[in-house]
C-alpha cells in the first residue's frame, strides 16, 4: 500500500520531521511512500499519514542527521523529502555508520544537496547588495536577491548579526525578511518593485571596481569560476565587465609602448 504525504510549507523542515516521525512509528518503509510538495499536489490535499497507527517507539535519531536534514531540506529538488526519509530509515535499521560512508550513493546525493545549499547561502552573504532609501527620516536598506534554493532562512542570522543596528529588508522571490533593529519579520511573496532603482553610493563602488583590475592579467575563466553569470543580476558592478575585458589588451600594450618610448 502506498502512503501519500504532502508537505505544504517552504522549505518544510518542521512538517517533514513530524511526518517522518509518524511514518517511522508506523514502520512504513521508504518504498511505500509518495511524497508530495506544494507544487505537485493535485486533488487529494489530505495526508494519509494522519490515519497511520503507531506500531512501536522511534529509535533515537543522531543529531548529525538532523543537522544534515535541516540543511538539505532547503534544496529546491522535490526529491529531498523522500531521500531524507530513505537515509533515515537505512540509518536506523540498516547501518548506524551510514552518515560516515561518504561514498554510498544515497549519502553522495545528500551531501551534494547539503553542499549546494551551503554554497547558495554563502553566495548570498557575498553577493547580495543593499540599496539605501530614506524612510521616516532614517536610513533604510533594501536588497533584492534570487537564490537557487530556499536559503533565506539560512542567512538571516548573518545579516542580523552584521547589520544589527541598521534597518533592512531582504526580498527574495519566495519570501522576504524585514529587520527593524529588534525583530525579524518574514513575509511570503514580497513585491519585487520595492527594491530601489538606484543608490547614491553605487557609483563609487563601480568606480572602485573598475580601478582595481590589472589589465595586464585578465583571467576571465578564473573570474567566472567564482562568479558565474547566474549571479550577475544581483551585482551592479558586473555591467562593467565586458568593457573591462575588451579593452584590457589595448591598455596593457599602451602602457608598455609608453614605457619603451621613455627608455
Amino acid at each position, binding site marked *: 500500500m502506498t502512503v501519500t504525504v504532502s508537505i505544504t510549507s517552504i522549505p518544510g523542515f518542521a512538517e517533514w520531521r513530524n511526518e517522518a516521525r509518524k511514518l517511522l512509528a508506523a514502520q512504513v518503509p521508504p518504498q511505500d511512500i509518495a511524497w508530495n510538495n506544494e507544487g505537485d499536489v493535485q486533488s487529494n490535499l489530505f495526508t494519509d499519514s494522519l490515519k497511520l497507527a503507531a506500531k512501536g517507539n522511534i529509535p533515537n535519531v543522531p543529531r548529525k542527521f538532523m543537522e544534515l536534514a535541516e540543511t538539505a531540506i532547503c534544496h529546491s529538488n522535490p526529491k529531498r523529502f523522500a531521500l531524507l526519509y530513505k537515509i533515515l530509515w537505512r540509518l536506523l535499521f540498516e547501518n548506524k*555508520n551510514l552518515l*560516515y*560512508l*561518504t*561514498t554510498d550513493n544515497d549519502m*553522495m546525493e545528500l551531501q551534494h544537496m547539503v553542499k549546494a545549499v551551503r554554497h547558495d547561502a*554563502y553566495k548570498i*552573504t*557575498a*553577493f547580495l*547588495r*543593499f540599496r*539605501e532609501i530614506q524612510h521616516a527620516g532614517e*536610513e533604510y*536598506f533594501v*536588497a533584492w536577491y534570487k537564490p537557487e534554493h530556499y536559503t533565506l532562512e539560512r542567512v538571516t542570522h*548573518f545579516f542580523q*548579526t*552584521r*547589520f*544589527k*543596528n*541598521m534597518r533592512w529588508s531582504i526580498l527574495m522571490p519566495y519570501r522576504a525578511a524585514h529587520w527593524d533593529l529588534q525583530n525579524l519579520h518574514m513575509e511570503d511573496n514580497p513585491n519585487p518593485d520595492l527594491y530601489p532603482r538606484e*543608490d*547614491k*553610493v*553605487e557609483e*563609487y*563602488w563601480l*568606480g*572602485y*571596481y*573598475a*580601478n*582595481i*583590475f*590589472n589589465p*595586464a*592579467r*585578465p*583571467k*576571465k*575563466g*578564473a*573570474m567566472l*569560476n*567564482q*562568479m558565474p553569470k547566474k549571479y550577475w543580476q544581483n*551585482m551592479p*558592478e558586473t555591467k562593467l*565587465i565586458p568593457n*573591462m*575585458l575588451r579593452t*584590457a589588451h589595448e591598455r*596593457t600594450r599602451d*602602457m608598455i609602448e*609608453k*614605457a619603451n618610448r*621613455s*627608455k
Partner: protein
Amino acid sequence: MSDRILEKLEILADAAKYDASCASGSAGKRSAGKNDKGIGSLTGGSGICHSFTPDGRCVSLLKILMTNFCIYDCHYCINRKSSNVQRARFTVEEVVNLTLSFYKRNYIEGLFLSSGIIQTPDYTMESMVRIAKSLRVDQGFKGYIHLKTIPNASPELQEQAGIYADRLSINVELPTQVGLEKFAPEKSLSNITDAMDHLKGKITEAKESKTLSGKRAPRFAPGGQSTQMIVGADGADDKTILKSSFGLYAKQKLKRIYYSAFSPIPDASKILPLKPAPLVREHRLYQADWLFRFYEFQPEEILQGTNDGMLDLTMDPKLAWALRNRDVFPIDLNKADKSMLLRVPGLGVTTVKKILSLRRYTKLTWEDLVKLHVPLNRVKAFVMVNNWSPPPALLEADRLAQNLTPPEQMELFA
C-alpha cells in the same frame, strides 16, 4: 560625497592594486554586543569574497592608499617620487565614510589601508592610525581592518596600529639587502625585520596573557602579520625567495606571504625589466609555500628540487618531489599516515581528510577513489587500495613525468 571623492577613489584604488594580498585573513569571530551601537562582524574563517575582478581576484576589502604622494623613490613602485602619476590624498573622514558606506551595502568585509609616505614615516603612520581608531572607537566598526605599516615609523605608532587593526603587514618587497639597495634605496631589510620582530612580540604577548592569566589582554592584531615579495624584478632566484619566506614564517611568525610576479607598471623606472615575470613562476612559488604550510614538507625537501636556484616551471613542486623519491611509493591509502597521504601527487588536503575519515568505516577501493573525484590518472602509479596496486613498471617508467605534466601547464598559459 562628491565628484572629487570619486576621482580620488579612482586614483587611490588604482595605486593600491599592484599589491597582491587581497583576501582578509582569519582574525577570529566578532560582532557588535547587545547594547553596542556598532556595525559589522567577523565570521571566523577567511573573509567573504564579495566580488571578483576580471583578473580573477577576490574582492573582499576596500583596498586603497591613504595617499599616493611619496617622498621615497622605490623603483618598482608606481607611487615613487620620480614617477609622474596623478596624485591624490584622502582625509581621515573620507576614508571612514567610504568604508562605512561600502560596508553597509554589503560590498566589503572591511578596509585594507596602505599609503605612500608624506612628510615623515611617523606623520604618515599617525594619520593611518587615526583612520583605524575612528572606525573602531567612534563608529564601533567590527569589520576587518588591515593596515600596512610603515617600516620606519616609531614602535609606539606600530603598537597603536596593532590595537585597532586585525592584521598588520610590512612589505619585504625584495628578499635581499642588495636588491633593496638597488631598487628601494631608502629601505633596509634589517629595519623591516626588526619592525616585524617587535610586532611579533606584541602579538604573542596579547595571545599568551589571554590564556595564562584568564584576563583578556587588549586585542592586538589577532590576524597576525603578512608580507609581500616581488618576483622577477631583481635577480633573486626562487631558492633565495623561499629561504627568506621560510625564515619569516619560522622567526617572525608571519601568517602569510604573498608573491607577486613583477608586472610592468605605467611610467616604469628605467632600471626595471621591461617584460613581466612569467605568472607560472609566481604560481610555483605559491605551490612551494603551500607544501611548507599545509603539506608538512620540510624546507630542505622543497629547496632540493631547485635547479640553479629555480623551481621547475614544467611541473608542480609536489610532483617533482614524488618523482625524485619514487622509492617511497606506492602508498597504501588504507594504512599510510596523514603526512604520507599528503605527499601523493593529486591528493589535496581536503581529499586526504575525506580518506582518513572514510577509512575508519570501510576499506577503500578503486570505486571509492572514483567517487571522491580523485584524479585517477595522476595518482594511479603512486597509490594502493583494496583492489588496486600499480604494476612496478608504472612507477619506474621514464615517461611518468611526461605523462603527468602537460594538462596543468596548458591551463596555466591559457
